[in-house]
């Protein structure tokens, strides 16, 4: 897990596979740079394939920004567990976290690119979701 502090929207990567999540985060760091808070989580609590709410909450915390946090997910449980994690946030934070409907790797790079230019959370989400537009 890695992060850097700034006023830019934070990016959280959630995959069933910790290798995919970490690899996607590597791509973001190398292609976009360090101007964006970034965290990743992958795997279930036993280290197998899956996702877990506690890990997602930690990642949101690690990538937290006053501008908000955009979450990129891969399949099924990654999305539902991310939504559950968002529900568990304090009320003032909940409205500043969104789950993007975008492919996890491409979406993370695009969302971070948008964020690195100082865009709002809504613009970051919209840009990532252009992949399916």
């Amino acid at each position, binding site marked *: 897990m890695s992060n850097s502090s700034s006023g830019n929207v934070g990016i959280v990567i959630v995959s069933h596979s910790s290798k995919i999540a970490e690899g996607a985060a590597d791509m973001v760091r190398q*292609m*976009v740079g360090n101007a964006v808070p970034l965290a990743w989580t992958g795997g279930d609590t036993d280290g197998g394939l899956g996702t877990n709410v506690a890990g997602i909450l930690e990642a949101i915390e690690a990538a937290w920004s006053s501008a908000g946090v955009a979450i990129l997910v891969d399949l099924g449980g990654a999305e539902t567990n991310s939504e559950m994690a968002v529900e568990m946030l304090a009320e003032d934070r909940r409205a500043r976290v969104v789950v993007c409907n975008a492919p996890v790797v491409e979406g993370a*790079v695009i969302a971070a690119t948008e964020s*690195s*230019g*100082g*865009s709002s959370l809504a613009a970051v989400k*919209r840009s990532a979701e252009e992949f399916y537009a």
Partner: protein
Amino acid sequence: MHDVNASRASNAFVPLMASAVLVNAVGLHARPSVKLTQCAKRFAAKIELALAPDGPWTDAKSPVKVMRVKAPQGATLHFRITGPDGTAALAAVLALVHDGFGEA
């Protein structure tokens, strides 16, 4: 989409046009697209690019749209820039292309 006021103000400016040849080996693939959009976003001006002087024009501040252009090495990138900081924006994007986006 990025700034309503900027696009309104840009109506008062004559578009600046220029072109540059993509010199880096892989053309406008993912990494250069990210660099170009990051550069473009630093300016208020409306920045568009195209593979032909008459378009179709692509918003240079949209990483997804820029990647979809899939411009190969040797392609000529045309820029159309409108806005108060258009001159500086044009110089910045042309320098990036001439420099091969910092790649070989």
